[in-house]
């Protein structure tokens, strides 16, 4: 493999990491509060707002129903509005974020619903406000689950990021299609796949390690 190709692979890897990191971060910024709200706003819950909950739930489901490749193309005008352009790696962050946010919201919602209702009752009995219950009880207790869920979201984003070549987004997927497939360079294709495997493995291991560190629910061997 020529030095040229190695440079290409390196650049594509950085582009993929850039897209995944930024859209993951933005997706979390949107998805986390959305998930918290979804988990606490059904009738009789802390922030009880059943109508808003139903509408947001519908929007989340609708967004998640659209296949990613269609989403990318369908929201081109919106992408142009936000990013100033509809093609390129930075522009690709818009659909990636839009796909990640509802996914992360559902993950956060599930993790928060896993928290024992007895803890909410205990916090209410201490005189906590709904805001304090979310900040001091629900989020910290759900954190290991959220960390695992975010890992899942990052892995999915790595997969999605391979499709943004359709709108001129670059990165590993785009490199694989253009060189490995269209120019029939199997060594490039193989290299792309190997790098993707390494990335996914790395993200998964890191996520699991973080979740383990955060989780104190089971008694761990600490030389008791």
């Amino acid at each position, binding site marked *: 493999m020529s030095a040229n190709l190695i440079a290409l692979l390196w650049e594509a890897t950085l582009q993929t990491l850039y897209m995944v990191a930024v859209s993951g971060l933005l997706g979390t910024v949107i998805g986390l509060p959305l998930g918290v709200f979804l988990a606490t706003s059904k009738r009789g819950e802390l922030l009880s707002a059943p109508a808003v909950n139903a509408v947001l739930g519908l929007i989340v489901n609708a967004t998640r129903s659209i296949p990613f490749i269609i989403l990318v193309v369908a929201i081109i005008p919106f992408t142009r509005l936000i990013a100033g352009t509809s093609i390129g790696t930075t522009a690709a962050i818009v659909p990636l974020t839009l796909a990640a946010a509802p996914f992360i919201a559902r993950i956060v919602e599930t993790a928060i619903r896993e928290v024992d209702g007895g803890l909410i*009752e205990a916090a209410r*009995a201490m005189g906590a406000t709904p805001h304090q219950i979310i900040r001091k009880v629900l989020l*910290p207790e759900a954190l290991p689950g959220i960390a695992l869920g975010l890992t899942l979201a990052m892995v999915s984003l790595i997969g999605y990021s391979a499709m943004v070549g359709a709108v001129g987004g670059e990165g590993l997927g785009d490199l694989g299609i253009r060189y490995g497939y269209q120019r029939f360079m199997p060594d490039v294709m193989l290299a792309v796949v190997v790098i993707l495997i390494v990335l996914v493995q790395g993200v998964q291991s890191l996520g699991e390690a973080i979740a383990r560190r955060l989780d104190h629910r089971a008694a761990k061997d600490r030389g008791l």
Partner: protein
Amino acid sequence: MTNGSPKTAPEQPAIVFDDVVKVWPNSSGGAKALDRVSLNVPAGGITGVIGRSGAGKSTLLRLVNGLERVTSGRVEVLGRDATAARGRDLRALRRDAGMIFQHFNLLANRTVRANIALPLEIAGTPRSRIGPRVDRLIDLVGLTPLADRYPAQLSGGQKQRVGIARALATEPKVLLSDEATSALDPETTQAVLALLRDINRELGLTILLITHEMAVVRDICQHVAVIEAGRIVEAGETYGIFANPQHAVTKSFLSGVTGTALPGFIARRIVPDGTGPAILRITFAGERATDPVLSRIGSELGVETSILSGTIEEIDGRPFGNLTVELPAGTLDRVQAFLHAQNLRTEVLGHVG
């Protein structure tokens, strides 16, 4: 509200339930969880509410700190109307009423120290004051060596000690206990009850606890209320209720702890009426509890009794006993007259057929 009188005088109850009704909104036919409940919880004492599961005791407890709302009636806590409190007032009231739970409800991802600090963080206590306060509480419940452990690394009894320390963090005047020992083994239960009793004495804390175990009432409660199907069927001083239970539910709760349950081999032979040997239960209470009554029946009446079952124990610091004896046929009336003359209560359980 008490018109202008000074703050909760000692003789004033800490908690008053006044004609409280609780109906679950979604239940068919409006099943009443609580049906016109009135109860005074004396300040500075330990009061137990005992009932079977579903009797409404848990709902009753949750009305005190506004976790549940009355349908009608009124709950007064420390002279404040708990039924009307909302928002800031309600949260202030909750800080004056700590609560402990059957399943502890500790945060798994906080250490012992951080769990106990939580109510103080919620109350907005400055960080510099939280540390020393938490250290004192950990010491009070005897967990200093375990301060940096997580709940998963503790035993059930230790977890409940954390729960108690946490409930005391905001220096409440009332402690609500929701079946706090029901998930613990008998030995641990004793230790936790002893801790509650110490706290009650040393801090002058009013404790309202709910339980389904009469042993808990016997061991630490000065007052007890028996609840059945949403109604208080009997209430009063523990000693009096034990010595002279009126309601069938109370008696059935008592049978497990006061040695009033007959051994099976007698129970199977017993008939309500008959001329055979009588089975008589004698309750020893008050200053008569330790009198040598049986030997006097023997020496003064010439009647030989055989003991079938019996216990003597201490309730609220006073001796209390129950003795079931078999009397030879035809001696029942004389023996009963003799015992009643001694101010002892008797109950004919039947005759051996």
